[in-house]
């Protein structure tokens, strides 16, 4: 237990090894072994720690590793406080669950990547694993950090890793641009986050989560008011919005799909993007003291969920559908936290991590099989070629659609139920979203795995066999332009399908830790996580259960989901032409959705153009005014130098020359006195004698 600091450090060591030595010396095998080994170690440690945690009375364990920032006297709201930050890690139910998710799914994705990234050249391969390990290091720091600042280190670190991994194929302009976009958009959120941290310190005089929670618990709930805690929560939520891709800062996440698929699965679905939710849940006490902000969180969450789901309805890129789905599900999580159901949000976070990672890895498997083809319109009938992928993705789809008894059902219905108790119209929006989710996921499945094969032909050596079930012919064929011969869609290797299978099992069973009492369960996870959301040992009052309502809602949401799936079946399997007719009937709406509500264009027109415009304006100012001033200074200097030069040349030099000229002229004149006639000199001497004698006489004469 004292070794929980090793959980983040192990991947850190892996990243350092691969980063410092690996790129130059390690082979693919070594690098993959190191990376997976580090993650495996972290996973085992997490498991061990988690089991230990279960046996702890306080359900909390704090490890202070070292002093980071020694005490500095800083002003706070209540006098001078000591700003002191240790490198401390806290293991409590929430962070324990998170670290299990991160290490578990992270480990599986590492394993998956071993095969998925095999086409990469050695250097890129090692680099990939280095980044991946680096990400896990920072993510675990974020999760386990016991203070805002340690969390912020992880927060920024995952942002960096995300940037590096989105732009992993940096020679591709779209990937590099997507990385930049993610980084820049995240900065906006981080700005709010760090302001929130400042305000936290100023208000409470400490940055420790537990201390802040306990201090906040003593303050009144800001009902109907907007006090300092509300401001803190709002700022923190701005950070969460950026990291978790909520309105209005969600635009980076779909573009982040430019990164390799394992990255999308790990960072942009399962872990990093949930950091915002995690952070809000981590500060549950603060947020419960700011109901106004909670409401904002809920509204933003549900709106994001709805909007992303509508966009997801019409996207054709398989990864983009999943990306918008992720945004949507994150919206769900915020909705949960917004209505005070932190446990439900965290629960959904966990289940979502399983099935969304599963879906992404499945889609990666499909993309791999289709030789980097991502457009669903060029797929179809894939279930015939890759049954394992099909099965596992099917499970994932059912999970996300909310079909019992898969995990998504439990977590989503918990959220819906809690939302229903809080606000009817929020629930209505969430329910509609749930239906859409089921629809677009079913659409994804049907377009990809059913229907006819619409992808490119391949040279399999036995012509006309494209539509045969055993299409992954082993016959030689190298008509492919992509470096390695493509023999048509084929099932992925074991090392890729194994994580899929494990995740599928996870997607099935993860929900069982949170079976609601309405269904006879204990809702264990709810009770387990509760200590993380309250200050001290205080327990939330037992809430009353409306089993009837809960049952009704469950039935309704299952119905909606099933109906949506059936609708999708009808549109995309039975009568594909009908979907096109529908698209042309609602051409306007379809176009708006296809273009993602033109938000990117809006941002481009406002923020980007504005920034560019102001930059251009500043550039103009710089060029004309600043440069003008500089050039003016230069010109003035030149001019004054010229004046000085003239003065120097004609006045100073003139004086010098004048003196010289006077000397020369004078000597020229006086030279003539030097006649060279010795007698003239004698005359001069004689004149001296004469003058002397005359003076003598005069002196004698006048002296008397």
């Amino acid at each position, binding site marked *: 237990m004292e070794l929980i600091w090793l959980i983040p450090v192990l991947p850190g060591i892996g990243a350092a090894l691969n980063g410092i030595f690996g790129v130059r010396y390690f082979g693919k095998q070594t690098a993959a072994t190191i990376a997976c080994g580090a993650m495996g170690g972290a996973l085992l440690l997490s498991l061990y720690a988690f089991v230990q945690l279960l046996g702890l009375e306080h359900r909390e364990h704090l490890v202070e590793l070292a002093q980071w920032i020694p005490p500095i006297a800083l002003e706070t709201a209540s006098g001078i406080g000591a700003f002191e930050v240790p490198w401390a890690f806290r293991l409590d139910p929430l962070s324990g669950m998170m670290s299990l998710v991160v290490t578990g799914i992270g480990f599986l994705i590492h394993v998956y990547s071993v095969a998925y990234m095999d086409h990469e050249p050695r250097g890129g391969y090692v680099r990939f694993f280095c980044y991946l390990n680096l990400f896990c290091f920072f993510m675990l720091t974020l999760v386990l950090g016991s203070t805002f600042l340690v969390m912020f280190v992880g927060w920024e670190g995952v942002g960096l890793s995300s940037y590096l991994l989105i732009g992993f194929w940096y020679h591709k302009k779209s990937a590099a641009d997507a990385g930049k976009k993610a980084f820049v958009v995240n900065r906006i959120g981080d700005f709010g986050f760090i302001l929130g941290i400042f305000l936290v310190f100023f208000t409470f005089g400490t940055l420790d989560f537990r201390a802040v929670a306990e201090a906040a618990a003593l303050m009144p709930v800001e009902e109907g008011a907007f006090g300092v805690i509300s401001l803190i929560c709002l700022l923190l939520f701005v950070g969460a919005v950026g990291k978790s891709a909520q309105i209005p800062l969600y635009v980076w996440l779909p573009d982040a799909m430019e990164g390799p698929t394992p990255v999308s699965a790990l960072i942009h679905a399962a872990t990093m993007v949930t950091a915002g939710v995690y952070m809000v849940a981590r500060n549950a006490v603060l947020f419960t003291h700011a109901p106004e902000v909670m409401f904002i969180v809920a509204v933003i969450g549900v709106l994001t969920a709805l909007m992303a789901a509508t966009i997801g309805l019409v996207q054709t890129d398989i990864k983009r559908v999943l990306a918008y789905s992720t945004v949507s599900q994150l919206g769900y999580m915020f909705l949960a936290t917004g209505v005070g159901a932190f446990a439900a949000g965290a629960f959904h976070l966990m289940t979502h991590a399983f099935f969304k990672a599963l879906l992404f890895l499945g889609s990666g498997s499909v993309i791999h099989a289709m030789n980097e083809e991502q457009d669903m319109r060029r797929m179809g009938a894939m279930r015939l070629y890759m049954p394992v992928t099909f099965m596992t993705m099917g499970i994932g789809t059912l999970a996300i659609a909310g079909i019992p008894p898969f995990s998504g059902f439990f977590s989503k219905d918990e959220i819906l139920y809690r939302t229903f108790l809080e606000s009817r119209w929020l629930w209505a929006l969430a329910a509609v979203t749930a239906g859409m989710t089921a629809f677009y996921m079913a659409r994804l499945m049907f377009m990809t795995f059913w229907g006819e094969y619409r992808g490119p032909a391949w040279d399999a050596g036995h012509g006309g066999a494209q539509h045969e079930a055993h299409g992954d012919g082993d016959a030689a064929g190298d008509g492919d332009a992509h470096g390695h011969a493509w023999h048509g869609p084929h099932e992925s290797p074991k090392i890729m399908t194994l994580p899929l299978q494990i995740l599928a099992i996870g997607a099935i069973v993860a929900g069982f830790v949170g079976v609601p009492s309405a269904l006879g369960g204990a809702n264990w996870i709810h009770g387990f996580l509760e200590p993380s959301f309250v200050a001290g040992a205080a327990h939330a009052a037992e809430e009353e259960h409306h089993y009837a309502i809960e049952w009704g809602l469950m039935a309704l949401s299952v119905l909606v989901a099933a109906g949506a799936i059936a609708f999708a079946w009808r549109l995309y399997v039975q009568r594909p032409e009908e979907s096109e007719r529908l698209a042309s009937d609602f051409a306007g709406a379809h176009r708006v959705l296809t273009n993602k509500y033109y938000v990117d264009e809006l941002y481009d027109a406002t923020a980007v153009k504005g920034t560019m415009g102001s930059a251009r304006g500043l550039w103009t100012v710089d060029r004309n005014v600043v440069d003008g001033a500089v050039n003016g200074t230069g010109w003035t200097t030149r001019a004054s130098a010229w004046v000085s030069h003239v003065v120097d040349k004609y006045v100073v030099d003139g004086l010098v020359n004048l003196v010289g000229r006077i000397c020369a002229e004078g000597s020229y004149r006086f*030279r003539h006195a*030097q*006649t*060279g*006639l*010795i*007698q003239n000199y*004698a*005359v001069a001497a*004689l004149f001296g004698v004469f003058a002397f004698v005359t003076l003598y006489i005069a002196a004698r004469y006048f002296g008397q």
Partner: protein
Amino acid sequence: MEITPAHYTVLSAALFSIGVIGVLVRRNVIIIFMAIELMLNAVNINLVAHARYLENLAGQVFVVFVIAVAAAEAAVGLGILLAFFRNKETVNIDEMNIMRW
């Protein structure tokens, strides 16, 4: 009509002035040398006269030295003159200006 040292002094001054005039006016270097000899004699007359009237033989001793210097001067001066003449074929002092500027 007593002859006083003043008479000798005036005579000496007059002879000296004649020498000076000779030095300043004549252009023949030999004559200029002779004018210098006249000036030396004027000085000698003065010295001897005052030695006589002051009853002090130091004056006469100095006359001996003056004569010695005069002899030396004449010897060296005339030697220079001869050397010069060999080069320039002239004894005109106005042409002896090669050392000016």
